[in-house]
């Protein structure tokens, strides 16, 4: 009888777990692994030639022009990651903090802050392209109207501003996500702990840095990890706003674009190379997975049971 119960339970768990597992295995893991295998072959256009071992990896890492392209894209990804860390997660934290205080209108603000998240990237990209329009864009028009005409810029046309402009659009689009995750974290801080701090200090700064921040560590783990993964997989927004080449002159190039362009080619380059593209994808995946694992375990260790 206990045997029967155990097998019954085992069967039940199997029934539950196998179909979803199959989906992921069949439609994600298996294709990805086959695609990773491309990295070990030489390709001419769409034609697979010989097995070349790690040569493709060597090429993208050490041979010009790939080397500088890789470095440039990687550098931009790092900028994106840190910038979004501040703009998206940092702002998200502040917004969450403000929302958490249940000031008048908080409900409305909450809905508003998450609204852009439900928009598609295309919409966001088109909108912001219009905003950054050098002649008619809202940004420049606003600057001119408040007498800061000399600050008006061809935002998406200069290497100095293009990436940042796209980052700003991304932050606008996604700031709602960390906001709500942080908010969820904050709402799990027992009210009495906050009252306890208020008994001891008036300083909002102390309260945030010494109490709230350490206590939302679990939210921070989620948000940091997802941001990291997202920043290094960043594709759609720079693709639509800067183009597949990372215009102007590579200043908005990121690994996602670079890998896609290398694997599938683009109108201006014409060349497709699955070998190099896959090698890049493998490297990116290994990098993301490794760092994400480190981040997660590091941050998890910091988490406190409430």
């Amino acid at each position, binding site marked *: 009888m206990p045997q029967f119960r155990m097998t019954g339970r085992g069967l039940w768990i199997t029934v539950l777990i196998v179909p979803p597992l199959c989906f992921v295995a069949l439609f994600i893991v298996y294709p990805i692994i086959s695609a990773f295998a491309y990295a070990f072959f030489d390709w*001419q*256009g*769409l*034609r697979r030639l010989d097995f070349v071992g790690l040569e493709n990896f060597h090429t993208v890492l050490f041979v*010009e*022009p*790939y080397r500088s392209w890789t470095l440039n894209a990687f550098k931009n990804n790092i900028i994106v990651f840190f910038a979004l860390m501040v703009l998206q997660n940092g702002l998200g934290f502040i917004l969450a903090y403000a929302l958490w205080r249940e000031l008048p209108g908080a409900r409305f603000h909450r809905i508003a802050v998450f609204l852009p998240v439900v928009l598609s990237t295309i919409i966001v990209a088109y909108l912001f*392209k219009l905003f*950054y*329009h*050098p*002649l*008619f864009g809202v940004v*420049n028009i606003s600057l001119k109207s408040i007498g800061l005409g000399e600050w*008006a*810029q*061809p*935002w*998406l*046309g*200069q*290497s100095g501003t293009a990436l940042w402009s796209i980052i700003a659009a991304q932050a606008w689009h996604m700031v709602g996500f960390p906001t709500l995750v942080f908010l969820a974290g904050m709402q799990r801080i027992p009210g009495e702990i906050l009252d306890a701090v208020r008994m001891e200090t008036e300083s909002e700064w102390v309260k945030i840095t010494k109490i709230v921040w350490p206590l939302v560590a679990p939210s921070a783990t989620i948000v940091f990890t997802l941001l990291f993964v997202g920043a290094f997989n960043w594709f759609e927004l720079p693709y639509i706003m800067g*183009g*597949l*080449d990372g*215009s*102007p*002159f*590579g200043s908005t190039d990121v690994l996602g674009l670079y890998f896609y362009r290398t694997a*599938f*080619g*683009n*109108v*201006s*380059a*014409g*060349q*497709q*190379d699955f070998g190099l593209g896959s090698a890049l994808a493998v490297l990116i995946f290994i990098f993301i997975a490794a760092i994400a694992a480190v981040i997660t375990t590091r941050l998890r260790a910091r988490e406190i049971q409430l």
Partner: protein
Amino acid sequence: QDLTFWSWRQEDRAAYEQFIDTFEAANPGITVTFETFEATNYNTILSTALAGGTGPDVMMVRAYGGLENVAVAGYLEELTTESVPALAEFAAPAIAAESVRADSKIYAVPFASQTQLVIYNATIFADNGIEEPQTWDELMAASQKLKDAGIIPFANGTATAWQNETVTFGLGSSLMGKEFYDELMAGTADFTDARFTSALTSVNELAQEYFPDGFIGLDYPSAQQLFSSGMAAMFVGGSYELATFKAQNPDIELGVFAAPGETAEDAKLVGLYFDGGYAVNAATPNKEAAITFVNYLASQEFGQAFANTLNNISTIPNVTFDNPLLAEVNELNQSSIPYLMLAHFRYGEPSGSVLIQAEMQKLFSGETTPEAIGEALTTGLAAWYEPFQN
């Protein structure tokens, strides 16, 4: 027999369906399904489908390097003058654009040529008493006059990377000159050549002065918009823009001219290239029907209809152009050099297009010099372009 026919020309759907009707009427038993895809992702989709073995029977392929990607992998059926007799009549550069360099085998029927030149708003020119300029200085003067009149002289923006190439060769071909092109091809000159760099200097001067404020942040659709709405007088672009402008603003009166050289005597050259071609899937089970269809696509009947309905320059010989503007473009084509980077430098990484686009963007934002560009192009291309490797 059912044929599927893939294209990235979403805007031409109606016209193609009409052509297909004609074809089907003439060839009972063959039906053709026309399917279009978003242009920027077309390569990905086509590669994927071909690699997956489910590609279309007949497809549009890009010319030059784009064609090689697909052809070399063996996905395309070789076309010969036997299977498609009309190919024998085509101009050599058109055929070259649809062939693999290594063995000169033809894989597609070229469908259109495109010309890089200057399009202008005839009404504005007339209102301000401006004639088509014959020299570079006249072009500058005319621009100044427009600017003084509060009209943006050129609508172009360079935020969209490939526009830089268009602007460079649309404006600069005459300045560079045919000789430079020939020497470059012969391997006796490279991009550090003064003819090339000084042309870049002039183009940059013009752009800084007469392109819209912040043009480096202006993307392609916005630039088109500026021109078609009548806010700007000129647009450096391709002959494919003519139809677009007309569609956007049916009232607009357009004119075209080739950007002039230093002096009126310098040959006025346009940049010419072949857009792409119609190719047959090597693995199609309906090869016969596909070849029949491609033969139709190579016929003069089709070429004429193509030119008339789509307002494009068909590559098929002896097609005449009802549209005076097209006729004029066709006229200008007689004096041209190939659209340089596309025709010759898109066979390796980094491609000439990628380099020139990036370098011009740098130049326009003041971060490099024409001489440095020449250097960068030459050394960059040397990575795979043998003539530069010394």
